[in-house]
């Protein structure tokens, strides 16, 4: 690392993270750190929920308090953590990976970040005026009748949607117009494909939620009657508008995560990725199919029965591109020279747990099964295996993988492995019992339950405590390593994607000289190097 770049990277020190800064790397870190804070807040809310559910009977909170914690746990985790944290990776990595100096709209990029903290404060401030309590799904008419916090909730989610929308415009424009020379679409890293597919969904689905939130807010504030059945309004309309966004949102929350692990498997297996085009195209297929499946959330809502079968079929078809990815990943690590570093462990954890979440999703898409387990803990277990076992594992994998690049320091591998072990055991201990409880008929979103479910709930609560505690070694590792960890090389993992072909951390404007791309991002063992930096990446395995 040259002295000049060192000075450039540290100019302004930590203070620049608290300012309006248009450097995508600063914005990326702002995203990652801010959303992690919300993750911990959402975690505290989850702990409160699990504490109440450790034993049957309303022992800690009353039903309303429980509903408020539950609603805000879900809303914070989805809208303030998993969606924006993946956008944070996108911000940091998209320009670096395509060989650009910044995003296409640097000021708009800063705006998308700075919309998040106020939106988060609005959502959490609602606890002082009667927080939202209609669940993260905010089903009408409950959401049009609950206290004023629900209005703040709608405003907050609307702002976060706008932030996500601006980000999507920026990502797509950046990828289309700012790629380095030689960076053709078939040379794009798979994380970029994931971000493209996600951004497409954000662009097409988020505005419909925005429209729905406008209608909810109008019902609450302006006296309209959209969702008031007493005046001829239709509560199901909200469900349609909500799920038109919120089912694709599941893919918004998982496609970039799939992109992250697609970066990690080849690097730590020292093999080219298996089925590059299949993985890239399956992301686009998921994105397009994802817009056609939303009503499978409404099989029990009184929808037209003739519509059920088409939605069941489209929901099951979407498992095909997902399966293509999973087989491609397995084929990538098959017979590879695997290094079990922390990012690789989390990425492997991702496959195993996402698979459980994904397969139970197919159960839920089947109408007869859904009619039985709808609104039970089976659904809770399913979505947490997808989003916690899946997306959050991938986020951790990504945080460890790019930690040396972002901070210029190495993290502590032993603490990382400890974190992985606790996280993996904790996730399974928390959510596996919920499948059983759900199959036995325990309804979700209720503060109390029948005593026969006590053992399963106690297990889940113990798992949640383990999960919460598992964050501590990560926090300690991240903070201490960032301050005083050993210096990281430019390319400690010997990876071929462009972000590793510049300094750690990258200098202002990313590259000393814009790279020229001459080969694919995963050509391990192909006897080639990376041009443009005068460096040659290792062509073969360790």
């Amino acid at each position: 690392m040259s002295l000049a770049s060192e000075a450039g990277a540290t100019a302004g020190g930590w203070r620049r993270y608290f300012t309006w800064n248009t450097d995508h790397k600063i914005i990326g870190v702002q995203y990652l750190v801010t959303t992690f804070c919300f993750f911990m807040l959402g975690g505290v809310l989850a702990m409160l929920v699990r504490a109440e559910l450790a034993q049957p009977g309303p022992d800690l909170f009353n039903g309303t308090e429980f509903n408020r914690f539950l609603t805000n746990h879900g809303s914070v985790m989805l809208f303030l953590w998993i969606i924006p944290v993946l956008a944070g990776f996108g911000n940091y990595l998209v320009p670096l990976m395509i060989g650009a100096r910044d995003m296409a709209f640097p000021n708009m990029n800063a705006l998308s970040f700075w919309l998040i903290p106020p939106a988060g404060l609005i959502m959490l401030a609602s606890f002082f005026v009667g927080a939202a309590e209609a669940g993260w799904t905010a089903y009408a008419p409950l959401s049009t009748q609950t206290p004023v916090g629900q209005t703040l909730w709608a405003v907050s989610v609307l702002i976060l949607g706008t932030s996500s929308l601006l980000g999507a415009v920026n990502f797509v424009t950046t990828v289309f117009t700012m790629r380095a020379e030689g960076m053709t679409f078939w040379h794009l890293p798979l994380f970029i494909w994931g971000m493209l597919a996600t951004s497409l969904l954000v662009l097409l689905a988020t505005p419909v939620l925005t429209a729905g939130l406008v209608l909810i807010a109008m019902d609450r504030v302006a006296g309209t009657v959209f969702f008031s059945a007493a005046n001829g309004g239709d509560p199901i309309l909200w469900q349609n508008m909500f799920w038109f966004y919120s089912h694709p949102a599941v893919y918004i929350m998982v496609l970039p995560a799939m992109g992250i692990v697609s970066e990690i498997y080849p690097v730590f297996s020292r093999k080219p990725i298996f089925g590059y085009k299949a993985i890239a195209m399956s992301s686009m297929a998921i994105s397009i199919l994802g817009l056609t499946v939303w009503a499978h959330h409404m099989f029990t809502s009184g929808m037209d029965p003739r519509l059920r079968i088409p939605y069941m079929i489209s929901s099951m078809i979407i498992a095909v591109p997902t399966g293509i990815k999973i087989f491609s990943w397995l084929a990538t690590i098959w017979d590879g020279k695997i290094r079990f570093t922390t990012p690789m462990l989390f990425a492997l954890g991702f496959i195993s747990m996402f698979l459980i979440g994904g397969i139970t999703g197919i159960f839920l898409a089947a109408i007869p099964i859904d009619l039985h387990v709808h609104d039970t803990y089976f659904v809770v277990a399913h979505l947490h295996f997808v989003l916690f076992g899946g997306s959050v594992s991938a986020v951790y994998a990504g945080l460890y993988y790019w930690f040396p690049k972002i901070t210029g320091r190495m993290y502590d591998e032993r603490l990382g492995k400890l974190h992985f072990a606790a996280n993996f055991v904790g996730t399974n201990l928390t959510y596996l019992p919920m499948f059983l409880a759900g199959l036995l008929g325990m309804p979700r979103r209720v503060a109390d339950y029948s005593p026969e479910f006590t053992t399963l709930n106690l297990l889940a609560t113990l798992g949640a405590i383990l999960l919460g505690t598992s964050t501590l070694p990560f926090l300690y590792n991240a903070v201490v390593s960032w301050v005083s960890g050993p210096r990281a090389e430019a390319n400690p993992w010997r990876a071929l994607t462009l972000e590793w072909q510049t300094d750690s951390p990258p200098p202002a404007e990313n590259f000393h000289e814009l790279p020229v791309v001459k080969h694919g991002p995963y050509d391990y063992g192909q006897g080639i190097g990376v041009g443009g930096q005068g460096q040659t990446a290792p062509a073969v395995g360790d």
Partner: protein
Amino acid sequence: MHDATHPAEQTAMFKAGDRLGLDHLKLGMWLFLASEVMFFGGLISAFLHFKINNPSPESSLLDVVLVGINTFVLLASSLTVVLGLAAIQRGDRRGLMGYLVATIILGFAFLFGQGNEFVTLYRHGVTLSSSLFGSSFFTLTGFHGLHVFVGICWALMTLAKAARGGYAQEAHLGVEIFGLYWHFVDIVWIILFTLIYLV
């Protein structure tokens, strides 16, 4: 740090985008408009859902002729935007400013017409909370009116920049981008006019 407002500098720096023949501001605007299509799509679906399943006698209070004239006013404003762009492409800055002023006047005329219609309906007892028709009609047309208002503000900013000499024969991207938005708002109105007043 490069500034997003200097397209010449951008294209010099990013050859890949150049080869695609895409300007990043224009692409960004198209993407934003795609999301606007979905936003109005959501509101229009809600309106149609109620129009089909809960038809309301109140819709007979709508004055198709007056609103038709208003529609013509908005269409004319799209024409003036096109003429303004053509003017600056010839290097005629005064022409651009003249047509922008015309656009702004036509935009306000449309909003005046809409306001007039709203007041008439309120006098007949059709309000936001009177019925599903009132709720969905005022919300949908109101949000369109809001978009027209934003467009007028944008036109005023474009006018101010033109007055400072901010556009030239070779550099009129800002006018084009504004035009994309204005035409979009216009097209949305054509759809709304058809669905609300004609069908």
